[in-house]
């Protein structure tokens, strides 16, 4: 009995090893629930605030470029505003005001993994919630995956699980934008009907079918069109408008969906 106890004490590290490995593997394979993921990733306040601290320093080095982008966007918005007052009725302006925009800063980002995530410094306290679209002045970035109190994790286009409803600008041919790893500048537009008239250089924009993004936000330009052998759909390579590796301020689109739409969708389920 004594020697058995000695034996157990001597090799206690083996049991510890097994315990720690089981713990790690449970963490690794058990967290499929994306909501829970928020607490072990950078949406938790500890690592979120540390990232923000370093990002606060980082942000100064990009000020000049950020300013240029903001000025450009201001100019564009101004011109849109004039158009609006010139030609559009008050009624459609009221309609647009239901779309809210929350400005946030990217404080952590990755582009090289198979499934990338990024963290922004706005959370549920700021009105950010799951499923909201994220974009900046150059184009679409991704969708909010989970929100903590003051930080949120974004599932960008560069994530195998992302699928964004997109269309060719000026047409009604739509499909889904997906990404399958590798090149962080190119994604694929799938399920566009075979007969669609798509050419290299066409602009790809959001559809606005869902409440995730407003309509006509730029996603990228068509780089290549492949006709799949199944004969039903096209496979389109899209070169992304946004440089995912270089992000500062972003906009989060928070649209209050008309209760009637939600009601109808519920009834169908």
């Amino acid at each position, binding site marked *: 009995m004594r020697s058995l106890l000695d034996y157990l004490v001597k090799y206690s590290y083996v049991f510890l090893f097994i315990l720690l490995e089981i713990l790690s593997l449970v963490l690794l*394979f058990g967290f499929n629930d994306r909501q829970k993921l928020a607490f072990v990733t950078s949406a938790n306040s500890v690592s979120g605030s540390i*990232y923000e601290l370093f990002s606060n320093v980082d942000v100064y080095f990009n000020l000049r470029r950020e300013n240029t982008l903001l000025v450009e966007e201001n100019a564009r918005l101004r011109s849109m505003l004039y158009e609006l007052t010139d030609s559009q009725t008050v009624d459609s302006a009221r309609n647009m005001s239901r779309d809210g925009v929350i400005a946030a800063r990217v404080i952590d980002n990755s582009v090289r993994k198979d499934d990338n995530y990024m963290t922004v410094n706005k959370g549920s306290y700021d009105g950010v919630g799951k499923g909201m679209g994220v974009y900046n002045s150059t184009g679409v970035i991704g969708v909010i995956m989970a929100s903590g109190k003051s930080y949120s994790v974004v599932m960008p286009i560069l994530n195998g699980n992302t699928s964004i409803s997109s269309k060719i600008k000026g047409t009604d041919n739509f499909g889904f934008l997906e990404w399958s790893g590798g090149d962080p500048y190119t994604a694929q537009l799938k399920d566009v009907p075979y007969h669609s008239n798509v050419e290299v250089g066409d602009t790809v924009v959001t559809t606005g079918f869902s409440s995730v993004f407003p309509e006509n936000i730029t996603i990228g330009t068509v780089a290549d069109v492949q006709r799949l052998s199944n004969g039903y759909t096209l496979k389109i390579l899209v070169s992304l408008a946004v440089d995912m590796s270089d992000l500062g301020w972003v906009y989060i689109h928070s649209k209050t969906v008309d209760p009637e739409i939600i009601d109808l969708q519920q009834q169908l389920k």
Partner: protein
Amino acid sequence: MDTFMRRFGTFVFVALMQILFLNRISLFGYVTPLFYIWLIVRFDSYMKRTGMLLWAFSLGLVLDMFSGTPGLNAASATLLAMVQPGIVKVFVQTERYEQLIPSSATMGSRPFAGYLLLMTVLHHTTYFLLRSIPLGDWSVLVLKVIFSTLLTFIFMIVAERLTSSSGTKR
């Protein structure tokens, strides 16, 4: 023999280096150095095995929190800490094993380089294997392991040069 505070210093150093700098490196979209295993590489033979495991596990867990990969670094780092004493013994004569912090001074530069390489290959293989489950493309996995190993190896050689020449051990 490393004191607790000194080891804690190394812990913070490799963690910050990995999180703030190395995690942002990505050559060709795939290759990332995982230099943080330096902490485990430098475990000395005075340490208790349970201590080694706990140090490695906590380091892995901290890195996981910042990389959005729960359990991945923790699992591979703990495994490496488990096999570390065995691997040291492969590269040094048994009588010298009694008191040793692995370095080129204590082991000789060739055995030390071999030791670093084997440790890195083992760690990176488990790391990338676990990360790419369910297994897709074998060739990509092998490329990731090879090139990341090379990069980590270079970083560790530089770290070894720096610590041995300055006299202050990290």
